[in-house]
């Protein structure tokens, strides 16, 4: 079965969604991320959706539940790179992802998780 790769960098997990996900693949990603947060003791999750051309209610719900799950596991989630047409459509659909932090690009997203990086440096020297 196909899987979306999860990269591990210090205490961050990086995911870049590059395919048109079916519902099974989205559910798999949510499961895999939960396990990866625990396995790597990650404190930040960055999800790049700049290549995603469609966020419907199912994928929107998945992003919200990943953020909620990560919070319970003491990790912060930032979704970056949403295309303007996708943002306009999401709002029309009635979803504004109120519980999901967003940033314009990967750079801004990593800066948003900056506190996480300082904490990491402080504890590991």
């Amino acid at each position, binding site marked *: 079965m196909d899987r979306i790769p999860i990269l591990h960098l210090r205490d961050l997990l990086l995911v870049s969604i590059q395919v*048109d996900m079916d519902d099974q693949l989205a559910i798999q990603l949510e499961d895999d991320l939960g396990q990866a947060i625990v396995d790597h003791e990650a404190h930040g999750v960055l999800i790049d959706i700049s290549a995603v051309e469609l966020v419907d209610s199912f994928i929107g719900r998945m992003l919200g539940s990943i953020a909620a799950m990560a919070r319970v596991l003491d990790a912060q989630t930032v979704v970056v790179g949403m295309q303007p047409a996708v943002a306009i459509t999401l709002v029309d659909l009635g979803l504004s992802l109120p519980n999901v932090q967003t940033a314009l690009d990967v750079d801004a997203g990593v800066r948003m998780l900056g506190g996480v990086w300082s904490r990491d440096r402080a504890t590991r020297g």
Partner: protein
Amino acid sequence: MADAPALETMPLRTSQDVVRARQRVRDAAVAMGFSLVEQTKLVTAASELARNTLDYGRGGDMTLDRLESQGGPGIRLVFTDEGPGIPDVELALRDGYTTGRGLGMGLGGARRLVGEMTIDSTPGSGTRITVTKWKRG
């Protein structure tokens, strides 16, 4: 672009079929010159309705029809299933109402995204949802 058939019917039996169906809608909208925002709205509506057909209608079909009017081209999508039907259409259109695992935004949200939507549903024998989106400008 080679001449595409005016009418295409695709099965909606698996979540992969939902992906294939929305990709066909995207291809048609691109070929007909819809703007990126209009494409995205139509494809997102198609994804919501195709998933409803699968999850609530126990599978069915999507028919894609290319339209031509004096105002310009349009795309009509018809989603049909022989599932349990929708007992109360007004209630089903209400944001936040769901009988399943979703957010309850699918049906009402899809209507906002396309503009024209009609629902014919008979409890016990199935549902037919028709949406039409015209190219703007």
